[in-house]
């Protein structure tokens, strides 16, 4: 298996932009990634794109405006982990030697999707969905359980959002570049007890893209390309196999695989980007990623280790909570942000001396499973 490198990254504007097409958003991100890589778009040998809503031939729709035709193009869907799946798919093709250079894209137009302004539901025929389950409900029930088993408080959950917005205020690409207090987060409208509006990621349009290459190609274009040292994508397991709902077992399993492949331990990681669609889940991910011992997630948050200037900053981009969450784009966007961190290009959010970064994304729910798809990538310089 060959080594795979990130050569360039790009992101579109993030926000509510119903007037902008998929080709426009995806094209902005792809052009930025191609320029960042320093390559010519005609060199691209493969394109993997992901989109959740109204998806059809996303790669071709974007790339035809960039002069890229005739090459293999694949379009994937894996709920919120779709972008990670595009990254993983291109990674495998380069590692296996099928192609030397390609681009992975995630794009979403939430404001023009059928679920614009609604709670994101499971599949139409899903039993729990028919009985009233939606994404915020799932995470609200988990948060209720965290209060019971972990001693978490509504203030802790609010603090995750405060932390995300402290970071987001430093990121010019964030949809919401403003800070909030714990009191303001708690006083915002209740969505599903204990989750308030400011603990939910906003509906967002946007795209992200990553140009990836084999070692031979990468060294021609960059003196210090970022290596994808670990790559994992797993599906969920039966809910009955987990003892409690305060873990998302697939996230822990994806992390274990990525750590093993990369040959790094959780304690080696300098910076993390993860799925914080709802503030409370971040505490669960701390434990599932091994950033702290099982049961210590609340303690890790309260210690400030994951905040600005902490030992292991989590979501220095501002996370989904302040950047926004264009579903399929987020799994690609976390790779972009970790790459920028490892290249020392993150400006005011830069984690000093970051050498090892972890990008995680989870997606989808279905009756009987803990979740649908979980992905972890470990990047190193």
């Amino acid at each position, binding site marked *: 298996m060959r080594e795979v490198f990130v050569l360039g990254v790009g992101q579109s504007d993030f926000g509510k932009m119903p007037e902008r097409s998929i080709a426009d958003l995806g094209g902005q991100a792809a052009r930025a990634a191609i320029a960042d890589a320093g390559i010519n778009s005609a060199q691209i040998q493969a394109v993997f794109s992901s989109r959740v809503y109204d998806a059809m031939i996303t790669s071709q729709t974007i790339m035809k405006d960039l002069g890229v035709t005739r090459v293999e193009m694949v379009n994937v869907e894996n709920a919120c982990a779709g972008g990670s799946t595009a990254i993983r798919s291109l990674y495998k093709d380069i590692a296996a030697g099928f192609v030397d250079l390609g681009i992975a894209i995630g794009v979403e137009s939430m404001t023009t999707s059928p679920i614009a302004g*609604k*709670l994101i*539901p499971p599949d139409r025929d899903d*039993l*729990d969905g*028919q*009985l*009233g*389950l*939606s994404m*915020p*409900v799932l995470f*609200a*029930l988990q948060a*209720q*359980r965290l209060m*019971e088993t972990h001693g978490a408080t509504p203030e802790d959950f609010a603090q995750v959002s405060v932390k995300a917005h402290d970071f987001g205020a430093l990121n010019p690409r964030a949809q919401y570049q403003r800070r909030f207090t714990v009191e303001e987060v708690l006083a915002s*409208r*209740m*969505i*599903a*007890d*204990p989750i308030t509006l400011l603990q939910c990621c906003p509906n967002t349009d946007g795209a992200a893209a990553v140009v990836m290459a084999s070692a031979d190609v990468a060294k021609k274009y960059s003196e210090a390309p970022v290596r994808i040292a670990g790559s994992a994508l797993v599906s969920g397991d*039966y*809910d*009955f*196999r987990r003892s409690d*709902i305060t873990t998302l077992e697939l996230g822990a399993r994806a992390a274990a695989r990525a750590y093993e492949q990369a040959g790094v331990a959780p304690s080696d990681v300098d910076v993390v980007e993860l799925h914080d669609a709802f503030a409370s889940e971040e505490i669960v991910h701390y434990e599932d990623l091994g950033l702290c011992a099982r049961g210590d997630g609340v303690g890790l948050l309260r210690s400030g280790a994951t905040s600005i200037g902490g030992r292991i900053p989590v979501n220095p981009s501002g996370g989904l909570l302040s950047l926004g969450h264009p579903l399929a784009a987020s799994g690609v966007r976390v790779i972009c942000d970790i790459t920028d961190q490892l290249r020392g290009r993150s400006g005011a959010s830069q984690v000093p001396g970051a050498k090892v970064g972890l990008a995680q994304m989870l997606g989808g729910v279905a*009756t*009987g499973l803990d979740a649908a798809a979980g992905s972890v990538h470990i990047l190193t310089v």
Partner: protein
Amino acid sequence: MTNPVPLREGLFRETAAGPTLLASCCTACGHTSYPPAPRCLDCGSEAQEPVELGSDGELLCATVVHMGNNRYPPGYTVGYVTMPHGVRVFAQLAISAGEDLPAPGTPMTLEIVPMWREQEQDVLAYRFVPAPGKESAHA
């Protein structure tokens, strides 16, 4: 007036002893599946026999949802209820507006009610009602 239809076949029924959820139990490994599975989800055996979970459970956790969702107006309550054989079931909870959320561990009892109307027919589904006086079946 047409007869009400169940949300889907084979999930629940009324019995002389009250409503029950319908599950399957693996005669090879003993795992209980809800909804019932033709093949054991744990060990893969096809030796499955039907089993009734009854109507008694215990609340694991609950939340009030303040945004409307499809057929449910804002202010509805849902939760996970632990049933006999350790089966964790997601369901609506019958809690009146303004009433406190029941505490984890509260005994709950199943009821089968018309949940919504579709093509001029009532659709039957299950929900749980707090039954604080009742002994939990598996506690």
